[in-house]
């Protein structure tokens, strides 16, 4: 049986014989993930096995600054220029299309590209566009009307057109939510407060049991935490690890499965789609920073570094109070492929276990 690289986890059903139905018997009704590190030891590889393509993290856990140190902020800011240089190098002879949602991640990536010395050359030669939706404007109107609209060509976010055009390098801010902590961390009260990120991970168990009363979801969390690259103490670290292990590989495939592109050989590379926050500098930072268990309270607090990076450029101090808007939910997308295999073949099919 060919190993899977991706399978659609959206709109799957529990029909008998489906992988989703099988998964439920082991880990319950929680989201059924693409397993980047093959951590799900209870899954029979005859039923499902993944070929992992997310770049392996390179990191060292020795001699790191304390979690509250300013050194981490400075280091985080320095990554942007480094990655922008890498993007421009990869884009030689191509047009850069930045997928701009207006959210923190795509805005910070766009700013880094705009600050770079090569920006003007790409812009003036017609090789720099922002691909966006109307809802992208609502996320950060001031930045759009003052910085983007007068300067940069804008086009509707059309994954199909961009992915099928070989002259385009697509740049996305996908996975930025998982560099520091995980913005999917649930919000619930513990001892009268929702500031739970620094609390011991064990406070999650009653919450998870309230979601899945079979105890299988807690079993999933406990098993995963045992296989982290360092001891997981806090809620923040636990969800960071879940994000690392189960989100990235799916996100790497999205532009490919949201379009009719036939050749999938570049899924595993950054030659067609450059995932800003999955680049090695951010990956290294993410693992090393998470290992020192930095102090955070709620999920807005984990967005402090990227917000500060944006404010340093724009000067809009009120941006620090920005709340998260899920503007991407109003982005037009179609799923064109539901499975991708290790050899680059793909299918659009329902959720039966592949045979």
């Amino acid at each position, binding site marked *: 049986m060919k190993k899977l690289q991706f399978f659609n986890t959206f709109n799957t*059903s529990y029909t008998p014989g489906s992988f989703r139905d099988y998964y439920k018997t082991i880990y319950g009704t929680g989201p059924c993930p693409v397993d980047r590190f093959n951590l799900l030891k209870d899954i029979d590889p005859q039923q499902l096995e993944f070929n992992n393509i997310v770049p392996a993290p390179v990191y060292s856990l020795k001699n790191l600054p304390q979690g509250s140190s300013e050194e981490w902020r400075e280091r985080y800011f320095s990554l942007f220029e480094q990655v922008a240089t890498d993007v421009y190098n990869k884009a030689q002879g191509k047009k850069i299309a930045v997928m701009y949602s207006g959210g923190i991640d795509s805005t910070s990536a766009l700013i880094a590209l705009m600050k770079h010395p090569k920006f003007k050359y790409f812009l003036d030669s017609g090789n720099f566009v922002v691909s966006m939706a109307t809802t992208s404007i609502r996320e950060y109107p001031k930045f759009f009307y003052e910085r983007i*609209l007068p300067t940069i060509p804008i086009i509707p976010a059309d994954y199909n057109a961009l992915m099928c055009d070989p002259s385009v390098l697509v740049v996305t801010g996908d996975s930025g939510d998982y560099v520091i902590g995980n913005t999917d961390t649930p919000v619930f009260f513990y001892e009268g407060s929702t500031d739970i990120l620094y609390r011991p991970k064990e406070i999650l168990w009653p919450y998870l049991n309230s979601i899945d009363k079979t105890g299988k979801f807690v079993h999933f969390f406990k098993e995963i935490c045992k296989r982290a690259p360092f001891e997981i103490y806090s809620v923040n670290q636990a969800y960071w690890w879940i994000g690392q292990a189960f989100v990235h590989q799916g996100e790497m495939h999205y532009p490919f499965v949201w379009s009719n592109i036939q050749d999938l050989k570049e899924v595993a590379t950054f030659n067609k789609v450059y995932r800003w926050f999955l680049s090695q500098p951010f990956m290294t930072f993410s693992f090393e920073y998470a290992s020192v268990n930095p102090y955070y309270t709620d999920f807005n607090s984990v967005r402090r570094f990227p917000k500060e990076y944006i404010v340093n450029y724009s000067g809009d101090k009120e941006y620090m109070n920005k709340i998260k808007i899920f503007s991407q939910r109003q982005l*037009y997308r179609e799923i064109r492929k539901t499975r991708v295999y290790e050899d680059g073949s793909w299918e659009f*099919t329902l959720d039966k276990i592949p045979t």
Partner: protein
Amino acid sequence: MTTLRSPALTTTTYIRMLVFNPTQHVIWVSKEAYPPQNILRRIPSSIPDLDFKIYHGPTPSVGEGWYNEFLKFNLVKPDGIENLDTAPMPTEFVDRIRLLRAQCYALYNVWRTTAGQIEKMDMHENPLLDSHLSDKDIAEIYQQVYNISHESAKKLLIFKKDELNFRIRNLKLVEFEAETKIPELTTVQEVDDYYRQLMIRLISLQPLELSVVLDHK
């Protein structure tokens, strides 16, 4: 004192339906509020072998209720606007009638899903798509409200119109594909598989299961 009340408002039922001609079994129904003026909605009349009929009369009292009988494939529509009846499906037409119902509801649900997308994406009655508005008028409003240059206003207008046209074109293509392909499918399973694939393709969160109208318990 006697309250004046129109009997039509309280007792009249108005049902549009598609009927399988050889047996008069009702395949698809849509009960409308009365009076039914101004209803302008696509119905799956492109599915072959079906006649369009209307029931208009008192609340029907057939079998265990007209809708239950419909779900059990027993409802038939004889001629006469106030007539409804029940009859078992003839054995030789069971597969054909189930297939037609699956085709009708698959297509109708695709339309409902794309309508939901049109609403979510702010395309329904969006004035930017109104031919009465000129680009010049729109750009002037953008310029004033957003305090941007004339050039920026024109650029924003082009972007927004391109975006709306891109979305509408894609959704209409899905609808067109569905209504071209669904009548060509030959089994209920094929219809259900294709329909479920379309729901995934459209990233639909609407729980529209065909089994509701095919396998009523």
